[in-house]
């Protein structure tokens, strides 16, 4: 009897515990989602392009979205151009970035050669400098070739990919887990190192390849510091991040705030869909990377 009561007590306790957890989770979901609900509402507001203190538009309209896709006489909203810039940068640099990272991480994981440890240490130390500091030199050089300002697309591709090898850690961690015995068996059968890489290791590395492409593709959409420095205030050379920030500076805010909201929605939808689609690979990469450091 007393046993039974104790059992009942435990059960009540877990029920209370679970209820508390449910309440917290529901509250969290609201807090995490509400800004995104708000931005969608504000993007449809027709009566005022600035900030107002209420959420529900008094006048629903597509005007803010239309403004993104027609020519702006003041050249302040050049959303199509920014989108095109960012897309080209993201697409090209994700391929080059992935190629470079795979070369580096595979080599450091699989091959033993003189200077390997030293190389890894040098990269570790280099990583402790704020990467932005390289921009002062690179900007001057790139501006000589005309790859800054309005022509910033090739310049940014170069900057995003050139030192890609520094981010080899996650995929090296992956290659470290692929059993070496496979390589050795193939080597005994007379395969060269290159054949081992292309015929055996790469086909198995699909998750990490997708992870690298995904993160490298998403990076230019979110990068700010390099893009802003290279664009140097020229609207034609901006990426969406820089261009959109430009819309909500003090002088532009009252005229373009709702345009900013609409642009946010337009940018977020394709990226979010792509991400949710490839989520599995991202989660694997992130967890693997954290455990291996």
């Amino acid at each position, binding site marked *: 009897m007393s046993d039974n009561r104790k059992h009942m007590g435990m059960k009540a306790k877990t029920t209370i515990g679970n209820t508390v957890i449910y309440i917290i989770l529901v509250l969290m979901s609201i807090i995490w989602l509400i800004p995104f609900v708000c931005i969608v509402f504000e993007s449809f507001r027709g009566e005022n392009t600035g900030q107002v203190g209420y959420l529900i538009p008094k006048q629903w309209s597509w005007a803010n979205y239309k403004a993104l896709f027609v020519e702006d006489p003041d050249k302040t909203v050049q959303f199509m151009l920014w989108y095109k810039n960012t897309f080209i940068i993201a697409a090209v640099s994700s391929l080059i970035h992935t190629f*470079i990272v795979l070369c580096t991480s595979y080599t450091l994981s699989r091959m033993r050669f003189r200077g390997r440890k030293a190389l890894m240490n040098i990269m570790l130390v280099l990583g402790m400098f704020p990467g932005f500091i390289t921009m002062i030199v690179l900007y001057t050089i790139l501006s000589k070739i005309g790859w800054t300002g309005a022509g910033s697309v090739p310049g940014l591709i*170069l900057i995003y990919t050139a030192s890609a090898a520094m981010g080899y850690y996650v995929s090296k961690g992956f290659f470290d887990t692929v059993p070496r015995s496979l390589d050795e068996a193939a080597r005994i059968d007379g395969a*060269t190192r290159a054949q081992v890489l292309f015929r055996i290791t790469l086909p198995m590395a699909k998750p990490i390849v997708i992870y690298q492409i995904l993160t490298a593709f998403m990076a230019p959409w979110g990068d700010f510091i390099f893009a802003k420095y290279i664009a140097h205030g020229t609207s034609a050379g901006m990426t969406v991040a820089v261009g959109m920030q430009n819309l909500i500076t003090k002088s532009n805010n009252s005229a373009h705030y709702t345009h900013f909201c609409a642009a946010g929605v337009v*940018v977020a939808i394709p990226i979010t869909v792509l991400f*949710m689609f490839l989520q599995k690979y991202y989660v694997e990469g992130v967890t693997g990377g954290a455990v291996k450091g």
Partner: protein
Amino acid sequence: MKRTTSNNKKNSFKQFFKAVGTELSDIVTTFKNGSWITRVSYLIMGFGNLVRGQILRGLLFLIFEAVFIAYMITTGVGWLQKMGTLGTEAVKRVYDPIYDVYVNVEGDNSFFILLYALLTIIFCIAFIWAWRENIRQNRISEELLGKGKKLTTTRQDLKALVDEKFYKTLLALPMTGIVVFMVLPIIFMIFIAFTNYDAEHNGYTVLFSWVGLDNFKNLFSASSGSNLGYTFVHILGWTLVWAFFATFTNYFLGIVVALMINKKGIKLKKMWRGILVLTIAIPQFVSLMYVSKLFSKNGLINGFLINMGLIDWPIEFWQNSTYARILVILINIWIGIPYLMLIATGILMNIPQDLYESARIDGANPFQQFKSITLPYMLFVTGPYLLTSFIGNINNFNVIYLLTSGGVVSNPKYTVFGTSASDTDLLITWLFNITTGATSDYKLAAVIAIMIFVVVSTISVISYNLMPSNKNEEDFQ
């Protein structure tokens, strides 16, 4: 622990000098014992390779030497000579009486003098390395031939590049990128820290020159006529406070959220997780800039609070430095928890379940289980991750800049040579403002970058030695 590190350091110095010594003595003995072919190779690189039939290697050495000598004679030496002064003649405007106009007469450009001098130095180092390699190959060839073996042919050399020397092929492109776009600019900026390069001394109309340690002295002396030292110390302090809170609040709350979602009996696990992951998927700059606007003076939050009758006047969240600081940490939690939740979920699943089983039998309550099993395990596994994310937060440009660039008022005490900073600025955002403002102060930016490096490397070394995964490697094996 500490003693071994310092010993290691001493040993590595010793090893370095020893290595240099053996290299030098090897160069001398190879010359003494070598044949005439080897000796000629000391002057004409690749001669030995060519005579012994390794045409490709020989030609590469020879061409490299020719290019090097030609470059040094035509321009290289000139750049090195100018490096001492960084130029003497700035661009001048001279009156042209024939056309009755002023024309520019090109002078020196300090920026490019320093850049080309640096490239020349690197070229020299590469040449010395190639020369040494050339000698080494001669010695090895002689040894092999002496034993009656054959040298590798050009065809074999090329084949090795996809086989046992495959690493050279694979690393060629990545390492070129790092050297040209990371190593060179960083060395260049370290040099800049010892010059007076800024918007006024732009190296073109007004040349810049070496100033020794002046920039560093200014940073640490209180009476340099500006608030530089004061600003630096205070921004550094806030950077560290921010990095600490940003890292650990996310870390612990992320674990707690992961534990809640993974708890037995909680339904709809996928949905809760999905909602959080959705916020990772939305580009960060959109959410950061939007949330920053939510909290602005006429933003939705103030509007909501006024409509509810809770306040009469809007709260100026971004104008008050204490509010602003708390707010960036809170918003960073909002941004960061989903990532940590993902990471923690992955790791929590790997904790051996029998640990919990035996803890329950011993009568440990959930909190005790968390304290003595979950947390130590997490810390053990994610030690290196914590360190990298702490360093990442020291340089967390995006969160601070996108949240505060629109509204935060700058602190009048933080005005340095015309550029100002606010109470929420980190070293990295300060550095950005210094280099982009009207009075771009590159020398100061270089000094700050070096200081960031010093801070980050110190923290790394200390915490790496404290890390449990480094101390007791087998605790959880």
